[in-house]
């Protein structure tokens, strides 16, 4: 049963009486106090404003607790200080443990509970996790320099030919910007580059390479071979290692012996000569089929073997068309039209077939 405390005039006289200091207990995170104790309200309670009186009463209840524990809420005194016989504060002793919590005095355990949590929250460190962020500190949207325009590119190398193919869809988000945008660029007479990714960067990259190829021609009095262009492309990409071209490239052509060669790149210039490769949004759908159907020697075998496919040119072109039709079924960014470029000893030949437009 709640025992109304005796009026303690000394305690009251020391009371600071600031209503603001009590409001914290009602706004602590996760705590809701709806009702208040009404016992032993002091006779001089200012009851004009209900809210004020609530806070006053809360403070009074808590003040009594503090006083009973021999502590004071006065700012000049530290929590936990004991008074010696003369009334002067003792010097803090390091060996003393932290003061015990006030003994539970109430049969109503929820009142005890409320006091306990109040005590505990005062002692624990501020909780890590979500803090209240001021509304003024909202992050501004940063400019994103890249955009993925989608699409897929494939190249397959044969004994004396090379097939390079790419779809012609240019998209942004869920929209189609163009159904007729070529991703293939002819860099030299036996060297063709197909790139998917951010077409702005790709256009810049192609211009860059074309200029460098022209300089090479003037310096060496011959056109660049495909392996030489492969190295140049790798260097150009790595030059922008810390602000890359968002371009996923596949370079195809004939090497100096007239055999088909395919070079595959990542965005910063790591490259490898392979027998076939796919890059772009539909690449993951195509590579397993190419691995299975091109009958190239496995790249996992040792010693490393020449990876060109033993298929004929028409078989390879047929496979590429079918593989694109399948990828179009399942990849939303691939479709519209397929551009196929075949490079062989007689030159470069271009072919188009329709793909699904949805």
């Amino acid at each position, binding site marked *: 049963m*709640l025992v*109304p405390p005796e009026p303690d005039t000394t305690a009251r006289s020391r009371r600071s009486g600031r209503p603001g200091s009590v409001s914290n207990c009602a706004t602590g995170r*996760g*705590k*809701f*106090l*709806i*009702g*208040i*104790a*009404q*016992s*032993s*309200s002091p006779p001089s309670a200012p009851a004009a404003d209900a809210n004020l009186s609530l806070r006053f009463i809360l403070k009074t209840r808590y003040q009594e607790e503090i006083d009973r524990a021999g502590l004071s809420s006065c700012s000049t005194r530290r929590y936990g200080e004991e008074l010696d016989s003369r009334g002067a504060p003792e010097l803090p002793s390091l060996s003393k443990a932290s003061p015990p919590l006030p003994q539970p005095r109430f049969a*109503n*355990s*929820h*009142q*005890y*509970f*409320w006091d*306990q*949590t109040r005590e505990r929250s005062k002692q624990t460190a501020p909780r890590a996790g979500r803090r209240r962020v001021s509304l003024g500190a909202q992050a501004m949207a940063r400019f994103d320099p890249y955009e993925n325009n*989608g699409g897929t590119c494939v190249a397959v190398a044969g004994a004396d030919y090379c097939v390079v193919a790419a779809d012609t869809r240019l*998209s942004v*988000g*869920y*929209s*189609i910007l163009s159904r007729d945008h070529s991703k293939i660029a002819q860099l030299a007479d036996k060297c063709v580059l197909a790139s998917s990714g951010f077409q702005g960067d790709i256009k810049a990259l192609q211009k860059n390479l074309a200029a460098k190829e022209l300089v090479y021609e003037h310096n060496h009095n011959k056109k660049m071979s495909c392996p030489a262009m492969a190295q140049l492309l790798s260097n150009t990409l790595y030059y922008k290692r810390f602000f890359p071209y968002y371009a996923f490239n596949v370079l195809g052509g004939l090497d100096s012996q007239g055999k088909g060669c395919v070079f595959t790149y990542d965005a910063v210039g790591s490259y490898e000569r392979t027998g076939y490769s796919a890059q772009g*949004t539909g690449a993951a759908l195509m590579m397993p089929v190419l691995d*299975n*159907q091109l*009958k190239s*020697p*496995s790249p*996992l*075998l040792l010693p490393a073997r020449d990876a060109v496919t033993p298929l004929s040119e028409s*078989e390879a072109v*047929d*496979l590429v*068309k*079918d593989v*694109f*039709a399948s990828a*179009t*079924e*399942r*990849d*939303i*960014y691939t479709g519209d039209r397929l551009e196929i470029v075949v490079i062989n000893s007689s030159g470069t030949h271009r072919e188009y*077939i*329709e*793909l*699904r*437009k*949805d």
Partner: protein
Amino acid sequence: MGDNGVFNVGFSLEASPWRMTGSMDLPAKGGFSFDLCRRNDFLEKKGLKVPGFRKTGTTIVGLVFQDGVVLGADTRATEGPIVADKNCEKIHFMAPNIYCCGAGTAADTEAVTDMVSSQLQLHRYATGRESRVVTALTLLKSHLFKYQGHVSAALVLGGVDCTGPHLHTVYPHGSTDTLPFATMGSGSLAAMSVFESKYKEGLTREEGIQLVADAIRAGIFNDLGSGSNVDVCVITKGKTEYLRNHELPNPRTYVSSKGYSFTKGQTEVLSTKITQLKQKVEVAEGGDAMEE
């Protein structure tokens, strides 16, 4: 006033052995239970990859014509950039005279339309009358509002009942519109452009079906989230026709004449390891007879 009545109805959300001891329980409110959200946040911070939703990235439309309502939908379901289902059904049954097209998260549209459809049937048994479109509408909107937009279902609800033809759109947060023609989904802008140019009141059945098919095709070809085929559903007084795959404008463009063979040896085998499974347990003959 001198008595101490401590009405501490509050409780702390921190873990505490004294939780709720002695306090009055508040009456259970409706609304979303956010109990697991903290746990999910914690798991996400620890690196758990949240499973993605399959969205239908859709074009759904409806319009009112002179005899009733025509609903239309595409048939592509996407999981990010990949087509998960090339021919799914987006026009859901609610009642014999009410159908509902659904866009948004596929699981949400399925679940919410199935649930309301069952509720409507129970209601039909209780009242002995044909379901009304506003009944379905109210059930849908109150469910979606209760979940505060977390049930991501954007619906086009249409039907014909004793009060006439009705067409409504329902948004994931629970708001609704009543319209003569409506589109929803990622392809809604493409479809709405067709409706706004060609819609007029008092269309005939053939004109209505043609306009709906045109709108869906606009979504299919211009929106990457919609594709494949056109489904149409025509609802009139006393009769409903569900024209599944009414148009198939996207056949596969190329099929290899050679075909494929997957003979053994095509995949390079690098190494082989055979592990014998344990021998099977043999059942012994005889033993105790079963007790009757």
